[in-house]
């Protein structure tokens, strides 16, 4: 094969030296493509050039031949750099495949079923900034009178955040009773998280539960973005605040718990900071825009609201999410 390459190269060089046309150069470049495909290193290419010249013009002075040896010596490092680059590209490809698989595992692991409750609509959108999601939604429901939802945000994004997430899932799994009070839910999860995470790792979480019989939405928060409550009669939004520290900072935390009564048309918006802290190259998107957007959609079904808010904010950020984006709406319809 090396002889074959030398022969082809000789032909190309001969043609070029004779005519020096653009077409000759084009052919030379196409030939180099073939050489790269065959993994011929640059030092080898120069050696082929030298050998071809020796054959065509044996009378050239010694200085010319010697100069090629210096060039070959120098090109060896370029060849090595190229080979290393190729191998890194391949490794990257392998990692990508692994990441895709991991993301799939995560999706299966973190699957949660949307509750079906009479008179309550649930809208949900959760989109990771990268492959793995650092936001987490968990529904807990008896599909009769109670619908609970946990909205959690692990610090950071990507793989470390995703790994942390399974911890919350198993914590929530252990609580199968939907009657558990939100403040108790946070207390249980906090103890699990506090024992298992690094000093600089933490999770914020909001837990809310709607009860059909008394139309009460009861909630508690562990350092999470406050949820928004929309009161249809007064046509106004209020933030649902409750005192409570992030999960994983201190072992014993007492979480506050509050409740609001929901009337038909009222809804609660729960989100992560990927929604409130949308960033573009020019700076932050005013959080009031989110409220304005939701307000303009207030008569739509819960899922339509979250979908259009996401689409709108995605557009404003030039389709480049910088943080995981999660938005959940509980809307009382009757």
């Amino acid at each position: 094969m090396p002889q074959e390459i030398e022969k082809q190269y000789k032909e190309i060089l001969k043609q070029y030296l004779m005519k020096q046309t653009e077409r000759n150069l084009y052919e030379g470049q196409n030939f180099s493509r073939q050489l790269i495909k065959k993994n011929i290193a640059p030092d080898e290419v120069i050696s082929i050039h030298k050998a071809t010249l020796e054959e065509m013009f044996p009378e050239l002075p010694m200085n010319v031949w010697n100069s090629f040896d210096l060039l070959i010596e120098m090109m060896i490092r370029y060849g090595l750099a190229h080979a290393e680059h190729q191998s890194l590209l391949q490794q990257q490809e392998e990692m990508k495949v692994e990441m895709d698989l991991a993301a799939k595992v995560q999706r299966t692991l973190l699957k949660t079923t949307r509750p079906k409750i009479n008179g309550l609509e649930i809208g949900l959108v959760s989109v990771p900034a990268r492959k793995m999601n650092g936001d987490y939604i968990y529904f807990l429901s008896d599909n009769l009178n109670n619908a609970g939802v946990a909205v959690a945000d692990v610090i950071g994004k990507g793989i470390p955040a995703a790994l942390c997430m399974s911890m919350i899932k198993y914590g929530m799994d252990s609580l199968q009773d939907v009657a558990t009070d939100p403040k108790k839910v946070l207390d249980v999860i906090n103890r699990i998280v506090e024992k298992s995470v690094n000093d600089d790792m933490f999770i914020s979480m909001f837990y809310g539960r709607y009860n059909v019989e008394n139309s009460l939405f009861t909630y508690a928060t562990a350092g999470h973005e406050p949820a928004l409550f929309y009161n249809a009669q007064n046509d106004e939004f209020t933030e649902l605040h409750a005192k409570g520290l992030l999960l994983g900072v201190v072992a014993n935390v007492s979480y506050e718990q509050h409740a609001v009564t929901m009337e038909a048309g009222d809804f609660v918006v729960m989100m992560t900071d990927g929604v409130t802290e949308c960033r573009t190259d020019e700076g932050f998107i005013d959080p009031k825009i989110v409220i304005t957007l939701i307000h303009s959609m207030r008569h739509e079904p819960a899922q339509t609201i979250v979908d259009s808010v996401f689409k709108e904010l995605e557009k404003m950020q030039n389709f480049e999410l910088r943080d995981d984006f999660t938005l959940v709406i509980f809307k009382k319809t009757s």
Partner: protein
Amino acid sequence: MNIQVVIKEEENLVKAFISGEIDAFTAPMLREKLATVQQKENLQTELEMSDVSYMDSTGLGVIVAFYKHVNANNGHVKLTGLSTRLKRLFDITGLGEIMDIETDDKGGNK
């Protein structure tokens, strides 16, 4: 994406002047700088943050880790010069309740 951390030690007090943005890219640098002082017993520290224009949850993580370390060694961390935006972050996360925080207007600088 820039951060500057200047640490000044005066007798019993270690003051760190932080300026710029604290995000996923710059947080490791802040962590490294703070790690150089956090091992001391009974450390009294003050993090001056009036020139911090932005901080995300990664930055918050670094501050929390530092706080935990210093507290474990019987020291004290005080944050000063927080902008309204930063103050909100500490309030929402509940950290404002457990940490010693002085906002910009109270601090008097700027």
